[in-house]
């Protein structure tokens, strides 16, 4: 903006937009995006309080909780990976049909014909592995800080359920490429479930939709993977985050 006049007019336009009714209806009072935001303790509170972030964060947190070495951001990273996996997963759904042999052919096409298809597929796969890892590490962190102690007992239980759901999400996704790796890894995994005492064969039947893995299993696990389990885990995530706030925020210093 070498032309000073142009810069001024642009500034005036920006001011005009930032003072408009539309703009102010989007950004609530205290938002840093509003015209005239100043860095004051009051506005710092408003940034959270007048924002959807208030569902996740209080206005203030204990100082030790902000130290990176305390939480290592593991819970937040797990959640962020879940969001990334949702976004990349929706992208993959555009190019995938859970039938045999289309599933495998779609993956081949995805890797070669679709713009960014291979990149997004790789992100989805590595993101899933990283999420299992980060959820597990998050659990270990919480244990070593004794953060499951009253009043946070139940949130620990919710966390264990979330760990299980994360594993199930990853495991159901493992079958979807419909290649040799997917088929036989899932065979090994689901054979273990069939050893359940008393009603093992029933468990196995429900799990893979038959007496052995077939293309029907693919459809079943696809629905579990893209619909049922994300739905369930979202509910548990909501409870988990809500309980973090209600149980007094992050656990105390050691």
């Amino acid at each position, binding site marked *: 903006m070498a032309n000073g006049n142009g810069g001024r007019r642009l500034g005036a336009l920006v001011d005009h937009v930032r003072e408009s009714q539309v703009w102010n209806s989007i950004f609530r009072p205290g938002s840093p995006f509003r015209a005239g935001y100043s860095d004051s303790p009051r506005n710092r509170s408003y940034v959270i309080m007048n924002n959807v972030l208030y569902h996740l964060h209080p206005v203030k947190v*204990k*100082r030790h909780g902000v130290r990176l070495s305390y939480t290592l951001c593991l819970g*937040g990273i797990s959640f962020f990976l879940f969001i*990334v996996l949702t976004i990349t997963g929706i992208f993959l759904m555009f190019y995938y049909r859970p039938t045999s042999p289309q599933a495998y052919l779609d993956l081949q096409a995805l890797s070669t014909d679709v713009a960014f298809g291979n990149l997004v597929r790789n992100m989805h796969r590595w993101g899933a592995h990283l999420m299992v890892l980060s959820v597990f590490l998050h659990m270990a962190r919480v244990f*070593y800080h004794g*953060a499951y*102690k009253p009043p946070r007992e139940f949130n620990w239980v919710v966390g264990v359920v979330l760990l299980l759901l994360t594993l199930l999400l*990853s495991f159901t996704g493992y079958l979807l490429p*419909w290649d040799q*790796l997917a088929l036989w890894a899932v065979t090994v995994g689901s054979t273990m479930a069939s050893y359940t005492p008393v009603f093992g064969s029933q468990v196995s039947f429900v799990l893979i939709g038959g007496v052995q893995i077939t293309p029907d299993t693919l459809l079943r696990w696809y629905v579990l993977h893209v619909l049922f389990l994300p739905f369930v885990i979202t509910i548990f995530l909501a409870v988990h985050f809500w309980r973090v706030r209600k149980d007094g925020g992050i656990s105390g210093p050691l």
Partner: protein
Amino acid sequence: MADIPEHLLRRSAEAKAKATGRPVEEVLAEMKGEAPPAPAAGGGDAPPAAADLDTLAAETGIPKHLLERSMRARAKAEGRPVPTAAPATATTATATAPRPAAGGAQPAAAPAIPEGVRTQRLLTVVKAGAIQQVKREPHDKVNVWPHLLAIEFVALLVVTFVLIAMAIYIQAPLLEFANFNEQPNPSKAPWYFLGLQELLAYFDPQVAGVLIPGLGLAALAFIPYVDKNPSVRPSDRKLAILIFTFFITASAVLTIYGSFFRGPGFNFTFPWRDGIFFDDLKAILE
């Protein structure tokens, strides 16, 4: 005064009229400033005109020595000469000697009030304590914005960067089309189940595949109800940490063992001698 609603003013006037025994209209007019204030009826509402502490003590029921002490302390705090003589004789002196904040001399006709004696009446006592008894402990706190959100944003960027870098440089495996008639050797579960698959080599499938993971998960969920130790300090919970670390380490060792040290037939192998039998990471490890 101007913005007090009429009905509130009236209610107040009625209460005051009832207390003083005067007509409501008169009190109302006085409160609105339309009529001169009537002389207080009786002694009840008047400020204690009694000059000396004896009558004040008699009226309020506060022991005289306490009134004196309070007077002296107040005088000392305000930096005035401490009255030593009995206040009864000092009434005129205090009346003419202005308080530092009062500015000019008071008129001699003003009611003589002993120094250090409050003339306000106690109307009510509001007990301390909120509806919710929340015991707030002093905590060193910081604002989420900008301190925490900035960190979270950086963490988000780092994770995004790492994930994209991995996605660019490590190709996710896609083997041949699924073939029910040809089982690869070895067949391995996803890596997070390889610890369990490793256990299958030692125990009955019912034990390794169902009992151990099932009980393990249940035990995990029940930790908070079993561990009754209220302390979070590591030095106070050595046993809990020892047990948890044992299981964490064991599952990590089993998983790594199952991932890298199990080859064809799920027999023992050295990854550096026989190669990697772990398809997910084959792309970068070989």
